[in-house]
């Protein structure tokens, strides 16, 4: 091999490289993007699961908003106080407190309630909901399609023995993905400390509820009278707890004749479980 070949090949590639190098450096002058280094740092602090609880498209967009638009730093639910404190240190701001919130599915009768028809098809409640208004008679009940279960990034939603999904409060990070997925809007974010829940969303009249589901709120109003803090109100035949007033005393749990009010402090009973022994209410 002659020395010429080496010189030619090296020279040609050198020239090419220099040519492209110059072109790229010129274009980088025009296409430069100034980026605040804090955005990258904050995005590293955030959990990076892109759950969307903060209301932004992802962790990176939230980090961007904190730096550029001076967004509040306590919006990250999964990260909690720790993350907020770290961001506060980085940005030189005072940390804000975060109330831990968890998702609650306000239905416990999806597996027990009467079926309208036998559904066989894609097992996703967003689709079941489109087929003749859902496969369960109750117009407000869970359709057992488990979209919430699939959407949960931390697997905090499980099925109980009636195949009804329920949220394990200790695992839930409060991102709110399931809230947006549920086609019947049964899921709500509630403060972690409020452990008493009414697990029914039916606005039907009591007589109609009894026809289709054994564990539905019949709107008797006993809990409203039993509550010492006026935290329960009737909304179109449905008892609703005002969580800001609720002191978690548990008095309403005892008086409910259909047992749709659950107290998860004492022992975590999976929704619908106690119904098994309660034969008189079986359909």
């Amino acid at each position, binding site marked *: 091999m002659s020395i010429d070949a080496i010189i*030619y090949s090296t020279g*040609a590639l050198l020239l*090419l490289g220099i040519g*492209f190098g110059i072109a790229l450096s010129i274009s980088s002058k025009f296409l430069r993007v100034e980026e605040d280094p804090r955005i990258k740092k904050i995005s590293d602090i955030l959990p990076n699961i892109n759950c969307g609880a903060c209301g932004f498209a992802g962790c990176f967009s939230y980090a961007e908003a904190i730096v550029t638009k001076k967004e509040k730093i306590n919006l990250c639910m999964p990260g909690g106080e720790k993350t907020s404190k770290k961001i506060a240190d980085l940005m030189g701001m005072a940390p804000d407190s975060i109330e831990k919130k968890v998702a609650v599915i306000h239905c416990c009768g999806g597996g027990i309630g009467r079926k309208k028809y036998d559904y066989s098809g*894609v097992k996703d409640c967003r689709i079941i909901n489109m087929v003749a208004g859902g496969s369960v008679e109750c117009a407000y009940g869970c359709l057992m399609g488990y979209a919430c279960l699939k959407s949960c990034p931390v697997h905090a939603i499980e099925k109980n023995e009636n195949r009804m999904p329920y949220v394990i409060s200790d695992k839930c990070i409060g991102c709110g993905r399931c809230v947006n997925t549920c086609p019947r809007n049964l899921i709500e974010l509630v403060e972690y400390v409020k452990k008493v829940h009414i697990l029914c969303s039916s606005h039907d009249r009591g007589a109609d509820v009894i026809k289709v589901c054994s564990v539905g709120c019949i709107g008797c109003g006993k809990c409203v009278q039993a509550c010492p803090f006026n935290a329960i109100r009737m909304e179109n035949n449905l008892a609703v707890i005002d969580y800001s007033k609720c002191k978690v005393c548990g008095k309403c749990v005892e008086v409910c004749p259909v047992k749709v009010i659950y107290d998860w402090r004492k022992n975590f009973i999976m929704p619908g479980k106690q119904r098994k022994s309660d034969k008189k209410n079986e359909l």
Partner: protein
Amino acid sequence: MTLGQIIALFMGSVFVQNFIFSRFLGLCPYVGVSKDTPSAMGMGFAVVFVMTTASAVTWILYRYILIPFDLTYLKIVAFILVIASFVQFVEMFLKKTFPALHRSLGIYLPLITTNCAVLGVAFLNITQFESESYGFAKSTLQGFFAGIGFMLAMLIMSGIREKLEYAEIPESMKGLAIVFVTAGLISIAFLGFSGFKL
């Protein structure tokens, strides 16, 4: 160059010899970025741009620099240099104009550099059209159509994968496994174009 030749080139690189479905080149971004349609579309456009410009430049480079100076053995290095520069340029451009797309493409954008489909189309051009008349126009067109074929494959796949989200897939087939099976089935379907003669 007649219209018939252009149509033949189009049919050839988009359907009959689709880079993904019949040549099996560039499978990494095909599986990696086809999760949702917008990013698949973005990746498709980036590849179309890189393929078209790279085909044009590599053909000129080969015909007027490498052949006269008898340096054809340098073609791999020289072509990779061209492709890498163009990918770098596309990355800068996207970061400036479409930051969201840039973020969703992530690592797959710099990976176009090593996308064998781009190098593949450059090599195919110089072997097919080296001494032909209108070689430059033909190789540029072939690069563009190959990019279109790539984008078509990406769009088909992302459309199917978005629907797969709702499907009930056996536990063992979840994730990439079902994607590979789907890719194989589409590939078989595209095999039907091989009997297609113009």
